[in-house]
């Protein structure tokens, strides 16, 4: 009897210990593999604030990273250990203050904002080279920024609206050819969109949208739709049918039932595809370049490309600063909505 009790206790202790060891190993492993992924990001940020024309001071780089990387991991550890939002914010504030102080003490003299002058200087390249380049129409960064915003936002709006409505329809209405339609959607995913560049160019040319932002907006919308429709269908499949019927007997029309009862339950899916769609539009390079002849419009990706091209070997700092500016919106979007993004697998799997 007593022997059995002792057995249970030691088994429980052993499994607790094992769980702890596994947890530590997992965290350690993830930390190590994330270093090569994260380090370049830190470098870009540090370079953008420290490099001067002519080269990068690698000592600054290492010193800054040796402060920033531990700070980030310290926060990560704290985030895992502490559940309260207020405490997490306090920890984040403290770490930011500490690393700012650390940076100021070690590399403070080398930090400057000169590389970010492109934000306020509309005539960046002329200043650099003494003459306009890239066809003479190299724009101010905010023009490209607004254009990118327009492309990403409008294509996302289209994608989300169409994918939501068709996902709902595919999930709820049995019509002839539904399963072959769904299979067809998946087959579309087999083709890499770049394979379609020439036909797409021709179509856009014929309908007269070449050299307009409408071109990339339409193409981006269409390319993402199959996958997004599939995701949304999965989310709608997970919403019980009788909830909708209940709303209709409660006096709602089908549209009201959709609006008040069904839609709120696929919110996670809508947020997820919005973020994915927006980032896709924000990062797009291939089709924005393919669908313009000359420099009819500029977006952030082409801006970055031409800045890099024009100053290559001369001004790493400027390229790094443009890169940081370019990735900031996607990064912020990810950070704020990542909780919703992780739900994607649950809804998506059911599709």
């Amino acid at each position, binding site marked *: 009897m007593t022997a059995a009790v002792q057995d249970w206790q030691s088994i429980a202790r052993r499994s607790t210990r094992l769980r702890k060891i596994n947890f530590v190993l997992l965290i350690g492993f993830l930390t190590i593999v994330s270093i090569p992924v994260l380090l370049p990001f830190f470098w870009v940020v540090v370079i953008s604030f420290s490099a001067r024309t002519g080269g990068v001071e690698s000592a600054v780089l290492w010193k800054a990273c040796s402060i920033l990387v531990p700070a980030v991991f310290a926060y990560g550890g704290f985030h895992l250990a502490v559940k309260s939002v207020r405490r997490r914010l306090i920890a984040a504030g403290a770490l930011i203050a500490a690393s700012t102080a650390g940076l100021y003490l070690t590399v403070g003299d080398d930090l400057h904002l000169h590389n970010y002058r492109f934000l306020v200087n509309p005539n960046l390249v002329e200043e650099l080279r003494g003459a306009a380049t890239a066809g003479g129409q190299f724009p101010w960064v905010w023009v490209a920024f607004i254009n990118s915003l327009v492309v990403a936002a409008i294509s996302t709006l289209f994608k989300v609206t169409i994918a939501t409505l068709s996902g709902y329809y595919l999930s709820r209405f049995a019509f002839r050819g539904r399963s072959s339609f769904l299979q067809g959607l998946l087959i579309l995913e087999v083709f890499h969109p770049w394979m379609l560049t020439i036909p797409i160019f021709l179509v856009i040319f014929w309908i007269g949208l070449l050299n307009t932002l409408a071109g990339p907006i339409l193409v981006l919308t269409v390319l993402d739709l199959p996958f997004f429709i599939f995701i949304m269908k999965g989310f709608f499949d997970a919403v019980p049918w009788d909830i909708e*019927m*209940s709303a209709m007997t409660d006096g709602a029309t089908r549209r009201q039932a959709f609006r008040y009862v069904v839609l709120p339950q696929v919110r996670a899916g809508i947020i997820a595809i919005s973020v994915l769609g927006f980032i896709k539009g924000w990062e797009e390079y291939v089709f924005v370049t393919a669908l313009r002849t000359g420099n009819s419009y500029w977006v952030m990706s082409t801006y970055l490309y031409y800045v890099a091209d024009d100053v290559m070997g001369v001004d790493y700092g400027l390229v790094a600063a443009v890169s940081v500016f370019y990735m900031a919106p996607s990064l912020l979007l990810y950070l704020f909505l990542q909780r919703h993004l992780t739900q994607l697998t649950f809804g998506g799997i059911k599709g």
Partner: protein
Amino acid sequence: MARIELVGVAKRWGNTVAVEDMRTELEDREFVAILGPSGCGKSTTLFLLAGIYAPTEGEIRFDGVRVNEVEPKDRNVGIVFQSYALYPNMTVEQNIMFPLRFVSMEATEAQKQAREIAELVQIEKLLERRPGQLSGGQQQRVALARALIKKPNLLLLDEPLSNLDATLRLSMRSEIRRIQRELGVTTILVTHDQVEATTMADRIICMNDGRIEQIDTPENLYRRPNTTFVASFVGSPPINLVAGSIRESRFVAGERSFPLSGITETAEVWMGLRPELLAVADEGLPATVATIEPMGREILYGADSPLGFLRFLEAAPLPRFSFGDKVRLATVVENVLFFDGTDGGRIDGASLNEFS
């Protein structure tokens, strides 16, 4: 509130027949239960009445007016789904008030009504919670409140008690009945639990395989079942059915025969003996006890007899017999039922003269 009529209603999906030739009439303020095994078309019948399904054939009438083409939202039907179907994104209060969004009513008035109905079903303390934070019984009351708030013509309850524990089920039964009387709403309760149906309903519609087998009061369903299906579905434990034939005014089963009157020669008949009306006596059919199932206050025995395996019920907390005991079984001959062996219909006027 409303008189409901079903006139030859059928619902089919391709070759699947869910319900066929439903004919019945519900009086205003009546409480009717639909009783039947799983898959017999009970939910389908409710959905037809709610307007969620359109009948393939036949007509549904509310107060004598055809409503086949009337949208669910315009039928003023309250329904509690088998799964409760609460809206997870809304609080309990918002759930209850949802039907009022579609009638013009001031927010304060709507809130007042929601509070009243919540008190009626005793969930007034839970109004701020979300459905995910409620127990099954509480969810059921919320669903009931939501179905009742717009004062429906017809209240449809699809197995609302099936997810509850035994005690809660008992109290909810009388609760639902009380609320129904208080509001005087015509109500249909779907269930496959016959005790629920018999204790709650004024009348029971007994369904099998998409068809109505019998519509009657609980008592008649038990005393005078129209078919062998009703006889074995209503009554617990199920009735003993003995196959035999009628020859020369005798019921013949195997080597045994019993004198009877009122039936002509029939090749195949069933004799129905209710276990609770079979009792051990000094005289009667010899049998050997083969199974003993204590059921709390009663004990269900199974015995091998010349008529085959027969169940009988004894009202005693402790077993009086043990395996292999020889007993003699007797019954009140007036209560023995006879059914046609081919179509299962009850044979009226047949009565056993002697059971031994």
